[in-house]
């Protein structure tokens, strides 16, 4: 699965910081996994959840990720490698 992201770059102490708005969609087998907590622990990222709907068998979370651009890319790739679908918050852009 490919990465989908919305960077808003700014420079903080010579590091390129970015924000990315994303939607995580969780399959049933990952509902009980603390994926977002692990993301914060393993990567230098701030997560800011804005909306979510999670039940016992499925769930989605819309959140903002903030950190260095490369760190966001690595973090999002790790999330996808776990089996979570990552999409832009605005849905698909390519139309017929």
């Amino acid at each position, binding site marked *: 699965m*490919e990465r989908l992201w*919305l960077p808003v770059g700014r420079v903080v102490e010579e590091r390129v910081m970015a924000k990315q708005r994303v939607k995580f969609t969780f399959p049933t087998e990952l509902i009980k996994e603390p994926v977002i907590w692990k993301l914060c622990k393993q990567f230098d990222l701030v997560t800011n959840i804005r909306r979510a709907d999670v039940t016992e068998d499925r769930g989605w979370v819309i959140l903002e990720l903030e950190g260095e651009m490369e760190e966001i890319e690595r973090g999002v790739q790790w999330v996808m490698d776990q089996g979570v*679908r990552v999409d832009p918050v*605005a*849905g*698909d852009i390519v*139309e*017929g």
Partner: protein
Amino acid sequence: MSYASHLRCKECGRCYPLNPVHVCEFCFGPLEIDYDYQALGRHISRQRIERGPLTVWRYSDFLPCDRQQVVDIGAGFTPLLRAQNLGEALGLRQLYIKNDCANPTWSFKDRVVTVAATKALEFGFDTMACASTGNLANAVAAHAAKAGLRALVFIPADLEQGKIVGSAIYGPTLVAVKGSYDDANRLCSELVEKYSWAFVNINIRPYYAEGSKTLAYEVLEQLGWRAPDHCIVPMASGSLLTKVWRGIKEMAWLGLVDWAHTRMSGAQAKGCSPIVEAWERQSFNIRPVRPNTIAKSLAIGNPADGYYALKVLADSGGVAVAVSDDEVVEGIMLLAETEGIFTETAGGVVIAGLRRLAAEGRIRPDELVVAFITGSGLKTQEAVLDRLAPRLEIEPHLASFEEAIAEHGETVAAGRQSSRGEGHG
């Protein structure tokens, strides 16, 4: 002047000024145009509308644009046809076809793009952009040409040459994106953040989507200012279904038609049916899918308005239906052979869905039904090529013709078949 008053978040209800933004800063929910309906109600009348031009702009009071700089190449006011033959085939006594093949670039996308292009000029953009595999690209390229805007059209690198001509002819910059569908989505998300362009279905989306409401206004007016009992609409992002419903409700709120109890039903192809799949699970949660269908113009695996489409289906008493690619082709051919309308695959989805719902009794025979045909079949000829009857090959003389036609199982009468039109001089 426009009666649009502000943008409102569809999730949390926060309001924003009418700027080129599409997402709520607080909850990241989608933004939608709100209007001053009290002022509009004092001003609007059937007679005022009927005096307007024969395009979507006769409903300009319901659109979020000022009228000074309208980018108009004639989108809208397409035929609403009584489909007697198809109705008889499906057991529906009051069936109508809204034929949006008759738009300038042969699809309903002209409705949304005429509004988007007009807003792009109002906002002072010099470039209009989109990512599309067909209909949207055609409409953006054409309207940008008319408006004198630069057009950037992003297409998948493997798109067939025949699909490119309908956009390239208008002189846009065509950018072929190598890679997957997701790669193109990601790139466009990045572009809209970096460049100050009117990206019609991203930062201009709240305005763009309003153009779809004109389909509803036209149907109501063409039916003699009454709402249909049942509409069947193709679903991709789900936006069209929600906007047709909104258009019907607006006209009812303003007293232009009697209060509407229209049932809204939506159709998708099975190879990309995330909205129907959620409907069948009785859930409002869309599970994104990877599209795999011949109905490319409906192939949106992660539909932005899927949740809202599900709400409309539920609130209006409609249903969602998914049909196979074979049924899509049958739907295209059935419409062509009964009503003389050649639709693209999205229209095949609608007709196949209609056939299914009628056969299952989920559309009653006496309902006044409108099926929305949103694009021309000339754009997706490959879908039906191998299903067409073979042609008769003959030598250039009469005997050869008569032999061939007899083998084909037809008879021809000698002499004149009809004297109709003769002898009145």
